[in-house]
């Protein structure tokens, strides 16, 4: 009996200590430890665009609620659209920052780390580096000094509290990255095609995009560091820029899952229904300007709530008003308090499968024109570049709709004629023309981040600030967004160092290039 008990006891204890299959049990059977880099590259693009992660989250807050309304491309009588009235909503102000780092920046850091290990992945590596610049420049333009060199490296380098890099250093590194990545692209190595939602594996177009982005960044530094701006602008132009609307950098979206849908469209249409909900409209500043310039795009991008696209009937919404009948009410200031009578984006602009356009051939031409005027480039004339930009800008809306978005060559030429380049004018006259075009260009592609940044550098067009009661800036147009409060909670020392270097964490502090 005792022996039997001893045997059972020994088995019991033995079983307890038997842990040889524990290692295997603790491997997650439903999630892989490695995936093809193409898959990661594909997802990273959707994260930059804003459809993956929390669909439309950062786009709604960063692009529409703040950037678009601040720069008076959009307007809203809804107090939720805080940029319209320079009021502060902590959550919305910090959203673009908070969402990007944990999605796109994280993925890109991972791809760059993995792809660096194998020379065969040089094209994936280079695309990821270019994409990272695209993402990071939007972040730094919106907020100023931000985590950059240590960002996204929580797993790779165990950096849990990234430092805030000075924007100047970020710009210098981004330019270097574009230069190196553009040069490293190699058509004879492996090229991702299905996973490339921009150029379908066309390496030469990526090179042009890298140079065109380099030109954008170079011109952005025009005030802060003109010498470097000149050097990099020349390098970009010499390297080869986008040559037609076919080269425009845009993420292709489709109908289907939320990650596939255009994130701007998701907000305006199927996802949040902001247009049908009358949440925001085109700004009076924009519509008046387009009307004055006889812009053929107006009937493509603008309509009233009842679908009326007649140019004469288009009416932009003034910024800084509310829907009350009080002193700042829409009805008080305009006599027409019916929000349905104001222009808003047309349906064709927010189809699920519209592309998310982030860097255009037209912009490249306008910036080239400016570079030529500043004597930083010699290729061609500023007038030619400007006119090519105008034509490209008005005809590219076909990307939204292959029929209703088309502007004929004749209409495009008429637009050029109506808004001629002031060849004999002052530099200020010329820049006013160039950047008025940039203003309409960025508005008509929902690229409000770029619209706001370009306005901050150039001050064109001249905007009249609003001074809604209780705004945070005292009636001055904001120059940056306020960081998410969470950074104070989880990265206090670095956050404070970054803020101290810039001044204050408020709307009026100017980022480095905004002098």
């Amino acid at each position, binding site marked *: 009996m005792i022996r039997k008990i001893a045997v059972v006891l020994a088995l019991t204890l033995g079983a307890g200590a038997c842990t040889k299959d524990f290692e295997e049990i603790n491997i997650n059977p439903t999630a892989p430890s490695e995936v093809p880099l193409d898959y990661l590259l594909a997802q990273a693009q959707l994260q930059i665009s804003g459809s993956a992660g929390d669909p439309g989250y950062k786009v709604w807050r960063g692009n529409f609620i703040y950037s678009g309304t601040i720069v008076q491309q959009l307007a809203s009588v809804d107090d939720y659209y805080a940029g319209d009235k320079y009021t502060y909503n902590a959550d919305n102000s910090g959203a673009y920052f908070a969402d990007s780092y944990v999605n796109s920046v994280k993925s890109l850091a991972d791809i760059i780390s993995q792809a660096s290990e194998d020379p065969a992945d040089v094209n994936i590596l280079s695309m990821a580096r270019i994409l990272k610049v695209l993402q990071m420049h939007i972040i730094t333009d919106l907020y100023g000094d931000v985590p950059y060199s240590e960002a996204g490296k929580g797993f790779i380098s165990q950096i849990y509290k990234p430092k805030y890099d000075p924007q100047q250093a970020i710009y210098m590194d981004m330019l270097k990255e574009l230069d190196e990545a553009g040069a490293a692209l190699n058509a004879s190595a492996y090229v991702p095609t299905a996973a490339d939602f921009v150029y379908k594996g066309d390496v030469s177009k990526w090179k042009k995009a890298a140079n065109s982005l380099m030109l954008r960044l170079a011109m952005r530094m025009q005030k802060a560091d003109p010498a470097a701006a000149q050097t990099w602008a020349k390098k970009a132009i010499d390297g080869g820029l986008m040559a037609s609307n076919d080269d425009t950098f845009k993420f292709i979206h489709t109908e289907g899952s939320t990650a596939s849908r255009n994130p701007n469209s998701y907000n305006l249409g199927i996802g949040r*229904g902001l247009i049908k909900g009358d949440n925001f409209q085109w700004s009076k500043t924009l519509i008046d300007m387009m009307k004055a310039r006889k812009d053929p795009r107006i009937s493509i991008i603008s309509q009233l709530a009842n679908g009326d696209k007649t140019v004469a009937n288009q009416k932009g919404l003034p910024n800084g008003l509310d829907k009350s009948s009080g002193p700042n009410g829409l009805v008080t200031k305009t006599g027409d308090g019916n929000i349905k009578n104001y222009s808003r984006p047309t349906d064709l602009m927010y189809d699920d499968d519209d592309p998310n356009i982030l860097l255009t051939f037209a912009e490249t031409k306008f910036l080239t024109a400016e570079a030529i005027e500043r004597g930083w480039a010699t290729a061609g004339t500023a007038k030619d570049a400007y006119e090519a930009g105008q034509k490209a800008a008005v005809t590219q809306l076909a990307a939204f709709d292959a029929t209703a978005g088309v502007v004929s060559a004749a209409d495009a030429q008429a637009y050029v004629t109506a808004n001629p380049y002031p060849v004999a004018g002052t530099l200020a006259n010329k820049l006013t023309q160039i950047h008025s075009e940039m203003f309409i260009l960025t508005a008509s592609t929902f690229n409000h981040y770029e619209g706001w940044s370009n306005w901050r550098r150039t001050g064109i067009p001249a905007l009249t600030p609003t001074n809604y009661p209780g705004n945070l800036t005292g009636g001055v147009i904001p120059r940056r967004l306020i960081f998410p409060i969470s950074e104070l909670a*989880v990265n206090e020392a670095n956050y404070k160092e970054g803020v101290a270097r810039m001044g204050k964490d408020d709307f009026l502090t100017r980022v480095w290039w905004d002098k």
Partner: protein
Amino acid sequence: MVLLLLSVCSMHSYAQEMTVTGKVTEEAGGEVAGVNVVVKGSSRGTTTNDKGEYSISVEKGKILTFSFIGFNSKEVTVGSESIINVSLTPEATALNEVVVTALGIKREKKALGYAVSELKGEELVQARSTNMANTLVGKVAGLNITSTATGPGGSTRITLRGNGSIDNNNQPLIIIDGIPIDNSNLGAAGMWGGGDRGDGISSLNPSEIESMSVLKGATAAALYGSRASNGAILVTTKGGKAGKGIGVEINSNITTDDLLITKFKDFQYEYGMGRNGVKPTTREEAMSSSSFGAKLDGSSVIQYDGVSRPYSAVKDNLTKFYKTGSTFNNSVALTGATENITYRLSLANMNNKGLIPDNTLDRQNYSLNVNGTLSKNLSILANVKYIKEKSHNRPRVSDSPGNANYTLVNMPTTLSVETMKQSMLDDRGYEQVWGDNIYVDNAYFAATQFQQDDNKDRFIVSFEPRYNFTDWLYAKARVGFDKYFYNYTAITPTGTPYQPLGGFDKNVQSFSEVNSELLFGINRKLVGDLNLNMLIAGNLMKQVVKQDYISGSSFNIPFFYDITNINPASRNASYNYIEKRINSVYGSAEFSYKSYAYVTVTGRNDWFSTLAPGKNSLFYPSIAGSFVLSEAIRLPSVISYAKLRGSWAKAGGDTNPYRLSLYYGLSGAHIGSPLAQINGSTVPYAGLQPLRSYTYELGLENRLFNNRLGLDFTYYDRQTKDDIVAASISGTSGFTSVLLNVGQISNRGVELMLNYDLIKNKNFTWDISYNLGYNKSNVVFLGDGLESIQVDNPRSQTAYVFQQVGQPFSLLKATSFVRDDQGRIVYNAQGLPLKGDLKPYGTGISPYTMGFTTNFRYKGVGLSVLFDGRFGGHLYSGTNALATRYGLSKESLVGRETGVVGEGVNEEGEINTVSVPATQYYENLYNFGEPFIYKSDFIKLRQVILDYSIPARVFGRSPFKGVSVSLVGRNLAILMKKTPNIDPESTYGNGNAQGYEFAGVPTTRSIGVNLNLKF
């Protein structure tokens, strides 16, 4: 039928011997199992079986001693009768109280070296709650129960002696009849909203419960190892009892729930809907959530539906919207016995209608308990429970989407919920947008058009054969499992303003935990007065969770809610398989000397599958001693009983599976290319090792004045080392947390229980009792150079819960005002306060908990009143922050006409004179957490029970054996609180971060009647 084995020592035979058999009963009539029957002056003895029967060989003229803990011993001289039936009388005092301890072992309380509190089932039955855990509030010193403001069926947070881990489970292990059950929350609200889908303990049927033992600390629960490092709650359900025929017990209970706070007392009713001091004049303008309009004048003003109504305050929105909830509980139990089998079968049905329209919760509990004696050495206990739970439209809380509660605390003064009811849909059947934030739904649309359905089928089964080798050696096997199948479907309806095409989410989940235990027990006298009680055992635990998720957005055909109607391209499906194992061996040895000195030593080793190979084993020893002074030495007669106890234990724990390395998530495809990204937002740690905790406790039990005054005092000290913490890191690292394995937390505290029998005579008794728990927590270490980590935050993102070195657990921090040297608030040039640092405002967990009970009994009538209170904690109130932001709070009245000139100074140090319009001033104030932090102290009249038992003699020869009726009130009044408008017990989450509320389901006052029939 053959009875129990004769003792080994009695194998010889004597000429004069005879076999005596009989039955031992208690005075009240039931049989008593396990009674020691000993031939006095010899070592010969036996015990009674489950039916109270015994058989023993004895010489004529010898004396048989019958003894059992809790009863007076009885001696009977053996005559010529071969059948001796004995009736035992209970001991007059409760000195020899028996409690259920770890592994279900019943022990005399005086032998224990640690604190155990036992609760009887009866009280839980009368004062029912839809979540049983709520009925434990205020009854046990050191037991902290936090209910959530999530409606019926929501979860509770139970902690004993503070929180030992920052990130891991801090709740005690729940064990039902020896089977650990999963008490995890199946879905909780987070900062983005959601609903609470309940936990494990909430599903139990109080009528089935015989008793609950609360093992407060690791020393009490040492034998359970890692899983009970936060203590354990042992639930013993009722078993069968031998008796005449079949016993029937019927219990019926009806409870109604009403709002405890029927009106927001600190809301303003002077200004109406609108912004900037003006009334709306158009329908568009009337689509506003703000109450910053004009002064109320009763004039006719347009509302969001285009209808004009008087511009006057609506004060009864809460009582109009929240209906009276009701709960019906009915249970039937059959108990009975045959020669070899005792059994109990019970069925219970619970139907609850919630406060919020359309919210229901239904539960059926089926239970069968069978105890059979198969042969003279083999007996089997089998226990089967089936719980079916079904809920419709569990309330959503926290953030606004689909959350009716949010709408109620945010809708303008002049808007009535009646209007929302009338004008809910537009002519397409879509929600009529009523405010300026599309994420805040019409309250009725949120309550009735959003759909959440869940059901859970749960089986808790145990099978426990026991074999007695000798009278001092036995083996017991126990195979038990807890399995449930859970199904959840949520519909975002067509026409939801922020998602017009709707959405669909389905989660099918199965959980299974199987425990297989084999145990050997020895119980024998060593030498003289020294006894040994020893066991050695092993257990294999296997836990598997399988989860299927199916979701999609955009229904092709409006209003038809099925996954097949979702655009195929936008359907998502995923599957998770989560497995975890713990292998264990353990043993315990208890030595007792006479009846006053006891020492228990235990040891357990756990091997965890979730930790790093080579680091996944942990040994926990414990030692506990008890010394009954009053039996060892002669004490003054005023002291009836005095005992000292002390214990020390090591415990530990693991974490969730799959945290050692990085994984990727595949997430569909986009135009032909598959998509993938890093899974999760936590940086993994390959070297995870067990967290450890060391606890000691010292206690004193005293009874004075002829047992009338009882005192029980405990001091404990619990130190956690190597805590596994997912520490918050900057999102700019790409991740939001990192796994660290070095945390240290200290919890020290005292527990005090006092009771006093004020009056005790035959017809009238009056006693009072008081319990107090105080726990001082301190975060000692988090990581090298790591001073604090952020744990959680509510939707406003202005308050945060931190763990910070040198501070108590769950530190509440919030965005503060910038202040000058004199503490004055600093304003910017526009007159708005400057945003300062995140400042600490104290812990969100109340360190003091207390309860006071008084019981009266006159003949068959009893009255029991329970007060409880909590002190020392803090709360951020999102509800009050919203009320200020939207102009609903009284605070927002200041400066309505003139603008707000904030009291303080400008950046130059001069007195601030800049006036800001009220609308913008208060909207901006929402970005600050500081003004909305309150002390969460309260005293509540928690429970009153009035009961009447009809005396047995009334029934005479009728089949009835007992009838009792009770009238029960729960949460009757808040006698003291510091939070305007809300109940301080209104948190929406039961996680480790405690300290904020946000638009939860209002607290209810329940009144019920309970009827109990036995025949």
